[in-house]
């Protein structure tokens, strides 16, 4: 079984009290038994997309077999520059997806996000989006062919922890996937996701180094989910979305 953590942060953020590089992340991944980790750079996500994505690229070069990169955008308000950055991240840096953050005050559920979604479709980028179920419905309602992964599956403050609502949204949109990284460890969460959506639309993530990865992993493997389904959730799905083989 190939184990891939689809939700990892790298770099620095005083707000999130994080300062971590690839070496530390790979060491932790070794302890957990993860083959690869999908990283987003915090500088790119919250400050400067060019600087942060370049920093991530350096870390990807240092650990080419372990670190997969998400391009990150700090905002949807940079127009063509953001689209060019995504192109650069794909062609020059070899990144395999987009990570983007949304808050109630700076929601990505607005028209300015639609060209970014369309660009991701053309680049075959899955989009790990820190969004609410309602935001996902808006985005996929406009660009249904985008592959959207709802970061935290509703288990984040802006979505009020409502993973049941996340499942309902995913039932409506076949290209909506759920990320398992949440500070919520409600019993029955994964079973409910699999029962409603099947195992193909769930991607395992930990949100390292914000969250403790051990309960994040345990809440997936210590369930009544069949091994073949776990194989997809723990790595197969994110590899497929990123167009990679095991």
């Amino acid at each position, binding site marked *: 079984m190939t184990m891939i953590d689809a939700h990892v942060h790298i770099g620095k953020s005083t707000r999130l*009290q994080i300062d971590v590089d690839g070496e530390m992340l790979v060491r932790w991944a070794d302890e957990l038994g993860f083959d690869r980790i999908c990283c987003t750079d915090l500088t790119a996500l919250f400050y400067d997309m060019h600087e942060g994505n370049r920093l991530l690229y350096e870390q990807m070069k240092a650990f080419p077999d372990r670190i997969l990169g998400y391009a990150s955008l700090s905002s949807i308000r940079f127009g063509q520059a953001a689209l060019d950055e995504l192109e650069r991240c794909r062609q020059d840096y070899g990144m395999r997806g987009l990570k983007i953050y949304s808050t109630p005050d700076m929601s990505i559920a607005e028209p300015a996000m639609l060209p970014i979604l369309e660009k991701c479709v053309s680049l075959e980028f899955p989009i790990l989006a820190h969004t609410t179920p309602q935001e996902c419905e808006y985005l996929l309602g406009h660009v249904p062919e985008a592959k959207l992964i709802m970061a935290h599956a509703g288990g984040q403050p802006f979505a*009020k*922890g409502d993973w049941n609502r996340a499942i309902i949204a995913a039932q409506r949109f076949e290209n909506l996937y759920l990320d398992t990284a949440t*500070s919520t460890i*409600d*019993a029955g969460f994964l079973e*409910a996701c699999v029962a409603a959506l099947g195992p193909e639309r769930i991607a395992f993530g930990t949100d390292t180094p914000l969250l*403790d990865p051990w*309960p994040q992993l*345990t809440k997936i493997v210590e369930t009544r989910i069949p091994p073949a389904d776990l194989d997809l959730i723990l790595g197969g799905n994110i590899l497929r979305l990123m167009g990679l083989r095991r």
Partner: protein
Amino acid sequence: MILDINAFIGKWPYWPVVENGLDYGCDRAAICSTRSVFVNWEDGNRETARACREDGRLLPFACLGTLELSHGRAARDYDFGAYAAQGFRGIRLYPQHHTYHPLYQAWVDQVLEEARARGWPVLLPLRIIMNWGMPLLDLGVIETLVKRHPAVTWILAGINYFHELQLATTLLLQNPNVHIETSCIMGFDAIAKLVEQCGSGQILFGTGAPIQHGRANLEKILRAKISGADRDAILGANACHLLALD
């Protein structure tokens, strides 16, 4: 011995829960019924007492609320003697679910002083489980209440991260009667950091099971980078001491 200081019996009103009993790996569990939280605290306590009579591994905590119901003045007092006779070992308060302000209700002070006199720990949750949809108690209220009753044996529950953990840590360092349970602590390396800051003597293993994933919460302690002695203290020895168990 592994003792879960924050477990439940009863139904969960918001979504289906996978029942596993104590199969997540603990030997004993301090419980209260969710009926106490969501329906009627006295009825719930009767359920709690009954469950503990039927299963000697369970330890009853009484959930107390106001005696003034249906707009009537309280015509009786709390019967602590009856609770003691039934083997209750501690008290839980859920003001955010019982529609009272704990700083402005005289009965709360009465209950806390009675708990102090009897040596019963008082579990006070910031949130019932780590789900962003659950109502929160104000951090300032917790601090004020703890400082108003410094001789009470406090168990601060439902603490997650950042400012919440900073308040709890401050109170732990100020007052040896203050303890923290671990069911909602989800941050990276948070347990090890807490031990480093406060020692292990005031940390109690808790899960929120069966509503939360018990095994995931246990794994968090088992994998924490702490000494074996600290781990043993957190997993059970501290709680045994507080509850006067062998």
